[in-house]
């Protein structure tokens, strides 16, 4: 038969486990709720209500959360300003990465990474008008400014500009697309494809 002390000990463990579970559930709910609304959750959000974690326990709790079998849809990505979390149920990883760079206001990296990704995987040059559309939503001024910034950085010199015969401007990365291919694909996407629908 268990002693009273032992019984109290088990009870305490059980209460802690419930509390532990509850806090992880709360964290998950915060992330899921935000993700449903296509919003990111920041690590720093957990210091606020309803999670109200202490700074020193945030890391541990996030790690525990990421280990829960039922919460494998959660993705955590380190941004420049914060750590971001979202549920892949609602936000694809690629889209989440775009949102993170927007949140970090790291528009130059956003443009470079977008162009490189498109040149690499599809492959295709990127119509700069893409950045004026959701979720990027650059203003015309911002677009010009960010594009202008490209030239000032040695590490972004692979990003090149290509114009279609109708004047539309595209960007590509010459790490992944040769100039002639980029030229031909720009003309195809912008002009020729519309003549052969």
């Amino acid at each position: 038969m268990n002693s009273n002390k032992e019984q109290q000990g088990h009870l305490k463990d059980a209460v802690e486990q419930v509390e532990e579970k509850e806090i992880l559930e709360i964290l998950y709910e915060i992330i899921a709720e935000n993700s449903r609304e296509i919003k990111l959750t920041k690590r720093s959000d957990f210091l606020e209500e309803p999670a109200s974690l202490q700074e020193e326990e945030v890391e541990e709790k996030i790690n525990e959360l990421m280990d829960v079998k039922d919460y494998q849809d959660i993705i955590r990505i380190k941004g420049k300003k914060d750590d971001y979390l979202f549920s892949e149920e609602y936000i694809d990883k690629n889209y989440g990465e775009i949102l993170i760079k927007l949140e970090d206001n790291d528009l130059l990296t956003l443009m470079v990474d977008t162009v490189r990704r498109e040149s690499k995987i599809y492959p295709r040059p990127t119509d700069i008008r893409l950045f004026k559309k959701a979720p990027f939503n650059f203003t015309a001024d911002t677009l010009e400014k960010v594009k202008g910034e490209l030239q000032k950085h040695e590490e972004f010199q692979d990003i090149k500009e290509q114009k279609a015969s109708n004047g539309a401007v595209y960007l590509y990365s010459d790490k992944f697309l040769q100039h002639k291919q980029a030229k031909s694909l720009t003309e195809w996407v912008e002009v020729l494809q519309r003549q052969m629908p």
Partner: protein
Amino acid sequence: MATTGWTGKILRVNLSSGSITTEDTLKYKEFIGGMGIGYKVMWDEVPEGTHPFDPENKIIFAAGPLTGTGVPCSGRTNITSLLPTNPYHAISDSHMGGHFSVRMKYGGWDGIIIEGKASKPVWLRIENDDVTIEDASHVWGKGIFETNAVLTEEMGKEAVVAAIGQAGENLVNMSVIINGASHSAGGHGGVLGSKNLKAIGVNGNQSVGIAADRKEWLELDKYMMSLIGANNQHVVPNAPQPWAEYHNPGSRWTGKKDLYWGAANPPVETGECDPKDMNSVGLRTQKAVFDHGEVAEKHTVRMGGCHSCPVRCHSQLHIPKLEEYGYSANVTNTCVGYFSPGAVMINGIYDQDEDNTRTEGAMITRGLGAQLADDYGMWCNYMQLGRDFLYAYENGILEKVLPEEEYNSIEWDLLEAGDPKFLVDFYRRLAYKEGELSHLGDSAYWIAKRWDFGDDYWNDAKYGLWSPLGFPRHHSNETAGQVGAVISCMFNRDAQCHTHINFTGSGLPIDLQREIAGEIWGSPEALDPPADYTPMNEYKAKFAKFSIIRNILHDSLTLCNWMWPMVLSPLKERGYRGDTSLEAKFFSMATGYETSEEELDLAGERIFTLHRAMTMKQMGTMDMRNKHDLMTDWIFDADPEEEPFTPGTVKMDREDMELAKTLLYKEMGWDETTGAPTRATLERLGMGYVADELEEKGFLPG
């Protein structure tokens, strides 16, 4: 025993004698339906040397066993006859969507064979078994819209009418047959005109049976719906979406947050169209915006389309400014139906600056032109009409060939100002065969001959001619290199094949496409990256064969090849794989004839090979390699600075394209020297009788 899938009956109407008879569909079972029935009837009954407008020519409207069953995207009608635009008047098919074939099947008919020639204008009225040849004098001379309205009024609102306009009546080579307001089959309108047959109206209140257990059928249908994408089976959205791993600006999956059918009352938001949400499949393709740009959003009433199609690719627009030209503010069409009239405006459109072709003026021009072309029943030879006009115009040919009075009567100032009003006069002249200019309606091959076009017409990419037989590129070398190129050589008009472009245009990354290509066609080498081609190989030949065979099957079953086959899906959890066995599964369940994917593909091969044999008879040759499977020079001579197979050029190499033909012939079991089907292949396909006839004529390879 009652048939399922098929209704079991084909109607035969002889307009010369007035005889109306019935035939058993199942005698054509090996040819599936639609196009297959059309080719078999033509092979059996129409001798070579027949002119398309001779009473001896026949025209067959046919559906396949899946039409009317509710299989997604199964509302297509296949029309087969001799093709006036082809230099040999070789066999061809045209297709229309809409509701015609479904209503035909509800009336109890799998197809309608029209033969002979009526002594005066008539229309054919089909209401279940009640079939009559009616006087058409009250609609002869009228446009298609009015004809369809009048005859539908006479038959009742459930009826569907397919009609020709003035172009078809006047035997314009480039004319169409249309049902509904925009479901257009290009090329055979003049054949109906030559028979004095203005229209066919169909109605019926029967149903199309299916052999399978209803529950199993619904399960398969649900599964199919989980794999379906947007129009052209594009499986990624057009712009970044929260749910999407990929996006592609060429995708027709335009639906997204804050995008509307803006002229609906109240406006309808397409929303994000998550692929798992079956209820938003019909909102994925906001085709007006895809075709015309953002300017069309506020004019979009809704998307329309064919029977049993959840995708809806015809945009229905309300553009009040069209009334200023004396035409309806309401217009519906899709794709080339809109683009072709825009291309006739060879000096551009009034509000179009250099980098913007998606202006309000462009939309108005297309809307006006689409109404004119569809009402008169003019075809465009896949946009070639505008390029033929351009060549004649910019080379000063019109000034030479048109009588001065006629030349001066044309409103060139409107053309030069980019005023769409020009189209009103232009289409009328062509449809009524008014003057010399109207010969543009003869189509590329004939007009080039008549007006003595130079070699540059054929050999400059700008004019887009694919074949010396007078048809243009249509998803040709720019689509998967040799795959699109060799497909484009196989038919008697533009190939109208979308299997390969649906795959390459899906929007998925190239490595993933190549991985899937490897699973289906044997190696990732079946597909090159865009504009970075490698020499021909056997896997590309397999890809080309698959593309053709499935296209043929779709036109026989009858399914929409702008959607089918389901090679891919929008589902990340399936690795974006679709299911290529769906056609065979639906066929088996509809007809009760258990048929594997391979067996059904074999039927496609049979139908395609019969097309080949018939073309050989009509051309009087078995040397298809050198007489039929041809390409114009620009395909090889474009980008003179570049060598083929260097990144950035899509030019082809002459020797390599000969190899491409050889490898496709090999896949098809055709003679590798001539490209003619061999006896062994014809017998393997159950067509020993075709081999016998070809042998008799000296067209069977030794």
